[in-house]
């Protein structure tokens, strides 16, 4: 059992812990991309704590000048437990801080914070990794709870815009898939990840009648990456991540300036000292094709600490 767990631990440490990326300018936390990239082994607890800073300052198209600066700081606690060799469960609890600072006028920074939307997830290892199998295939289903506040109000009592709400106010479904391949004896791993988030309706304006329905656009995300073991305790990885977001819907009509396509480059360093590990990661946009005019992520940096309990 211990050896088996060790094999998976080595395997996991050779991969990026998660595929970080913020949801750009919409509400809530980067919950989708914070899902651990692999499934947890049977009988094993896995704990990770990630701090992430997402700088949101780029306005597209470029001829449009920014009128505000935003950032999101997140603290994500990820707890996973392997029920068996095949099944594992995950709980992700975010705490977020959201900031918006106008570039004009005298108003200062608007800062909100609070518990974000919690994600619960079940993963199934179709092909578990072990001495024989140097590849892994897993799928999962997640349910995102509207645990974060989405009705915070400003000084005069008006509900703040979504980019300042810690939660989305909706129940969302997450479909997750993962494949990886080790190329022993070469210290290289290849991995591929798919996510799809089907967002539910929320009552963004806390009203009744025809305007009570708001729906953030569904999100498809995939990532392809390579990991290279430089030393037994040091891995380098890089992945390319693609994200497509559909337009938001308000009263069943598409909302302008929402939705688009993003491609990010995500380099990372993993430092492993079993059963602990540290991970430092960045995220840079390399391609963006956004609908209309949007403010979006300039860069993201994150640091994770993770710990396995056998």
């Amino acid at each position, binding site marked *: 059992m211990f050896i088996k767990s060790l094999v998976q631990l080595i395997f996991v440490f050779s991969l990026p812990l998660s595929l970080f990326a913020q949801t750009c300018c919409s509400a809530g936390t980067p919950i989708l991309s914070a899902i651990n990239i692999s499934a947890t082994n049977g009988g094993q*607890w896995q704990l990770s704590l990630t701090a992430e800073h997402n700088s949101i300052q780029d306005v597209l198209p470029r001829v449009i000048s920014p*009128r*505000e600066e935003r950032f999101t700081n997140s603290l994500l606690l990820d707890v996973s437990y392997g029920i068996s060799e095949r099944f594992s469960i995950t709980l992700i609890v975010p705490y977020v801080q959201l900031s918006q600072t106008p570039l004009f006028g005298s108003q200062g920074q608007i800062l*909100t914070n609070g518990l974000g939307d919690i994600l619960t997830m079940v993963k199934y290892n179709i092909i578990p990794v072990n001495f024989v199998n140097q590849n892994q295939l897993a799928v999962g289903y997640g349910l995102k709870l509207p645990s974060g506040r989405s009705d915070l109000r400003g000084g005069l009592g008006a509900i703040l815009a979504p980019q300042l709400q810690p939660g989305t106010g909706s129940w969302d479904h997450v479909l997750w898939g993962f494949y990886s391949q080790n190329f022993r004896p070469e210290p290289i791993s290849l991995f591929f990840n798919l996510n799809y988030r089907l967002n539910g309706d929320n009552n963004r304006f806390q009203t009744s009648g025809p305007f009570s329905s708001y729906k953030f656009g569904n999100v498809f995300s995939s990532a392809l990456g390579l990991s290279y073991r430089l030393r037994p305790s040091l891995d380098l990885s890089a992945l390319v991540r693609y994200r497509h977001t559909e337009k938001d819907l308000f009263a069943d009509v598409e909302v302008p300036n929402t939705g688009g396509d993003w491609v990010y480059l995500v380099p990372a360093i993993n430092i492993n000292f079993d059963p602990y590990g540290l991970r430092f990661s960045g995220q840079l946009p390399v391609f963006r094709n956004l609908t209309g005019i949007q403010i979006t992520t300039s860069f993201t940096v994150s640091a994770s600490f993770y710990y396995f309990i056998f």
Partner: protein
Amino acid sequence: MKVMFIVFLTGFIFYSCATDPATNSSSLGGSADDWLIPKNEVFDGGPGKDGIPSIDNPKMVAMDEVDFLEDNDLVVLFSKGGKLSIYAHKILDWHEIVNDADVTVSYCPLTGTSIGINRNLEQNGQKKKTSFGVSGLLYNTNLILYDRLTDSYWSQMKNQCVAGDLVGTFPQNEILVETTYKTVKEMFSSAQVLSNNTGYYGKEQYGNYPYGDYKTNNSRLLFPVSNTDTRVPGKERVLGVLIGNDAQAFRLSSFSGGTNVINSTIGGEAVVVVGNSKRNFSVAYKSHFTNKTTTLTFASIAESGQSIFKDNLGNNYNILGEVVSGPNIGERLAGTHSYMSFWFAWAAFYPATGLN
């Protein structure tokens, strides 16, 4: 170890839940409880207070220096003391408020409404000049301004202070006329135009409309409204006239076949409504001169230069209600509270409106 881990997890969740999310913004002024309009129908538009910057030192240029306006672009015209000023929607879409010397031009791109406000507000019995800014708040998806004298909040289409020290008071309005750049060029070649060199954004920005197909998509709204009325497509432009409690809407499209002149009564007041869908304007004035009471009757004429309608005294008028020829040259018709609007917005603010 597992026990420690569970304790840590519990502590994290407890800490997250126990922290009361709150804004850390600078004072927005006023009180959250003293709204004249339903507080739960006031929404944050997103950019924050002054996040959409008003133009406070407008630079005006001659028409022959203007290269960023097309003939069909909508503009707002203001006249005072013989000085004519033009403010293009292309610029107002990004600023919403221009604090010019004699008027604050307010424009809400989400309701398509331009309303002129006198910059002098009365505070403690004294008139004081102020400027207005964009509060970042919306009521019935319409602009709420704030004044920089008292930090009070003003609903543009309700035309009233709705929160703050001046709550309940009404602004003094100035006459604005909305039409196309072509029509203005044909009528007022000497007018000055708000430059796209605003000092805030690059000139290219003003060639981009910020809300996609919002102006033409009848079913697309960005914020809730309190009343919907399907008698007319939502984004059709109407001239709304409010006198007393009598609200009337005149469809611009109904003014076909040249300039139409309607002598009407609204709210017990004799008014004249003049419109031309081809030249893209519709205006309403009281049927008497400013500071006078004699009621006039009006009729259409063969348009020539600025002259677009006439009265029973032999005066010819321009689109601003100014006598341009005849015995009362120099006089001007008294203004009404009227402006062009998307139909949905007018119907949201004035559910009992008549439709003409």
